[in-house]
């Protein structure tokens, strides 16, 4: 039995590419396999070309690869575009009665999708038949799929049964009619007790676990599902989601809620974050805890709205005029999205300043099997909170100068202490001031919080041996592709490892230098055009990388891309 198989479902928007891709992923996840799946789609609701790739493996998997073992083509364009990605023994499932092809090819397996749908009762989509046929061809457990379809379409009983019937027709057709040679047969391998999450699911769950009570946001790809999911839990978790009039309002609302003392968050993309930058500084000077999730997509401006990039790192590190502290987390995996979103709420409240979680379109929309998180490992650290019992409330000063830079935070209305703050520079008492002394004290006090934050940031994650001749560096969503690159190259006897930054600000400079000290060559790999991590590394440590591998075409970075570029540049 092969250890791995790669599926691709292709068609136009509206043909259900996403839904069968998701169901296929779930069927394998429930069968105990590990899944990594990603989506490629255009900014349109109907038409165009989109595809969904599902990588199925018997071991944990964190990246997508290009070769396709089975292509489910819902239209002809899918065959034209992706035939070249098919492996030598790969197969294409398509509807030969609808899609007329000039040549017959042993790679092509026609399943009369539309005809079988009509026989199953019509009014459903032929993609369900294709899904059944795919699983029939590899001789998977049909009952697992049937249960899944009943759950998926559960609210519409008749439709659920019609879908099961259609899927069975496809499944049986493939089992009976396929006479070619397809080497892949998959069977369930375990009890499937894992979660199948995409990045926005993981962020949402992390926020709920951390006790987020207020989300203000404006819909924008790729983070819209965060506000939608949390809104669906409003009643059960006593959390309010406000669909704001724009991102400016969304950010300023989150700041208002944070000031009053609830855990507050906003989520957006890079161009939405542009509008939020004014309010980010408001949180900085008023020392208000807020969590911001920024889902990068290729810019500037609207750029490629449904594609991926890591182009916003330096923008986020320095966003807003003036100087104030912030922490920035850059989840490497979908599992990281969960833990780091929860961590961001602690950092925001302990240091009373914005905590930003950077994801990107790839991580937001890709699905990955994740071990069930141990929720007891989540701690709620609210930082120093002033109550009337702790001193004379009449003497309370919101921005009291302290050694750590953190002033105990009173919550307005919960005691007699008056909580006074200002977006102007202010005195310790929070009133606007023009005093040179106050200004110097307050700026210094705020920036001292960086010292505490520096101790909270995890060192970069190493993958592979502790030292190696060549080290790849990266941050955020590229971890899966980079770690797999290390595996592939080590098998080829290359002495290589990976240093990956999933918590990036304050920059863990000492840990980075220590980890890179033995490396003869350091290559930076990023999904952007200007090598922003390499720039930060040099600014923070003086270390100059020996080469850069950059991808900025809007597509996710893959092991094959990295290795090909390394060869081309003479790094291997």
């Amino acid at each position, binding site marked *: 039995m092969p250890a791995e198989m790669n599926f691709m479902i292709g068609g136009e928007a509206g043909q259900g590419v996403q839904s069968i891709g998701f169901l296929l992923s779930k069927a394998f996840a429930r069968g105990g396999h590990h899944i990594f799946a990603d989506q490629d789609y255009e900014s349109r609701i109907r038409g165009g070309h989109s595809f969904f790739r599902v990588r199925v493996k018997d071991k944990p998997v964190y990246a997508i690869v290009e070769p396709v073992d089975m292509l489910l083509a819902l239209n002809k364009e899918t065959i034209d575009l992706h035939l070249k990605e098919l492996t030598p023994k790969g197969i294409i499932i398509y509807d030969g009665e609808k899609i007329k092809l000039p040549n017959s090819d042993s790679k092509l397996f026609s399943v009369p999708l539309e005809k079988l749908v009509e026989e199953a009762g019509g009014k459903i989509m032929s993609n369900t038949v294709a899904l059944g046929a795919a699983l029939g061809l590899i001789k998977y457990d049909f009952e697992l799929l049937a249960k899944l379809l009943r759950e998926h379409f559960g609210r519409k009983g008749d439709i659920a049964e019609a879908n099961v019937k259609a899927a069975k027709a496809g499944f049986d057709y493939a089992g009976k009619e396929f006479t070619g040679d397809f080497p892949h047969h998959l069977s369930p391998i375990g009890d499937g007790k894992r979660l199948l999450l995409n990045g926005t699911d993981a962020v949402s769950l992390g926020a709920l676990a951390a006790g987020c009570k207020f989300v203000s946001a404006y819909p924008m790809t790729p983070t819209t599902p965060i506000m939608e999911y949390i809104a669906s839990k409003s009643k059960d978790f006593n959390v309010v989601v406000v669909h704001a009039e724009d991102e400016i309002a969304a950010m300023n609302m989150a700041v208002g809620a944070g000031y009053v003392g609830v855990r507050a968050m906003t989520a957006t993309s890079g161009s939405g974050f542009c509008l939020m930058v004014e309010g980010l500084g408001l949180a900085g000077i008023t020392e208000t805890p807020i969590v911001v999730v920024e889902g990068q997509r290729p810019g500037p401006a609207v750029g490629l709205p449904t594609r991926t990039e890591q182009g916003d790192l330096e923008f986020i590190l320095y966003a807003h005029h003036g100087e104030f502290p912030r922490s920035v987390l850059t989840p490497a995996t979908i599992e990281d999205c969960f833990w780091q979103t929860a961590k961001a709420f602690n950092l925001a409240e302990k240091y009373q300043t914005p905590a930003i979680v950077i994801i990107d379109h790839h991580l937001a929309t890709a699905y990955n099997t994740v071990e069930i998180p141990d929720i007891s490992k989540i701690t709620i650290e609210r930082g120093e909170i002033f109550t009337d019992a702790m001193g004379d409330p009449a003497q309370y000063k919101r921005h009291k100068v302290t050694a750590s830079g953190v002033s105990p935070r009173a919550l307005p209305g*919960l005691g007699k202490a008056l909580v006074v703050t200002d977006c102007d520079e202010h005195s310790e008492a929070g009133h606007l001031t023009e005093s040179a002394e106050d200004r110097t004290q307050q700026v210094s006090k705020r920036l001292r919080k960086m010292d505490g934050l520096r101790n909270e940031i995890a060192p970069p994650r190493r993958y592979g041996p502790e030292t190696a001749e060549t080290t790849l560096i990266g941050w955020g969503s590229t971890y899966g592709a980079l770690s797999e690159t290390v595996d592939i190259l080590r098998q080829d006897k290359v002495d290589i490892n990976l240093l990956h930054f999933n918590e990036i600000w304050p920059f863990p400079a000492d840990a980075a230098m220590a980890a890179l000290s033995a490396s003869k060559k350091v290559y930076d790999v990023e999904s952007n055009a200007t090598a922003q991590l390499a720039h930060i590394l040099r600014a923070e440590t003086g270390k100059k990388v020996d080469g850069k591998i950059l991808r900025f075409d809007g597509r996710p970075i893959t092991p094959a891309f990295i290795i090909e570029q390394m060869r081309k540049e003479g790094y291997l």
Partner: protein
Amino acid sequence: MVTIADYAGLRPAWCPGCGDFGILTAMKRALVELGLEPHQVLLVSGIGQAGKLPHYLRGNIFNSLHGRPVPPAVAAKIANPELTVIAISGDGDAYGEDGNHFLHSVRRNHQITYLVHDNQVYGLTKGQTSPTSDPGFVTRTTPQGAPLPINPIALAIAADVSFAARAFAGDIEHLTQMLKLGIKHRGFALIDILQPCPSFNFKNTYAWYRERVYKLGDDYDPTNKIAAFQKAQEWDDKIPIGVLYRKERPTFEDQLPALKAGPLVKQKLDPRPVESILSEFM
């Protein structure tokens, strides 16, 4: 018992004769007469001379960005509905930079009071045209004269505001009444306050307003939208003050299921309930 002295804040840095002094006096009176203590009140302001008002009072104070007093104010109210939340703004702040937030907060009907110190000119930046400057008002940024102004009351009525009143900083007693009605009102309450600026607006002076303002009488029905809209058009010769429009409708907060369990800020944070929803992803 709360007294006027409890609301004595910092010494104002406004120009002598500024209409803001009248508003400050009326605010203190209204808060005391409503029996509110400073710690029960949240004053959220923007930038401009009006934005400084909270510092000259006492209370919880969030002095926010220019044009952004409303978003933090509405969020604060959602986070802790037990707070009395008053947003304070000027005509440039409220009707210029805050325009979108103003319209949508009116539409959603958050339970806050919105005071707009409307002096028809930019004071803090020294005398430029504001969104409510009278047509033809000549300033350094509009040497050709100001274009047509926004009519804040008519705009709010068009968006079905829950409460819209106009008051005059030169009539402290009436202004105090309007503030009390606005603060007690359930829903978004706009109070547009005619406020003479002795430094930069030499047209709309105390005398100019005094000649024109008149109080709406008992015969005026503020629940009639069409009549209110018509009344809101009066300006050049006669300017009505009082409650121009009132509409009882559910507030945004009334419709939030999450608030049924009490203020969000008082809820315990517990990660464990997330365990119960993980099965959705299996």
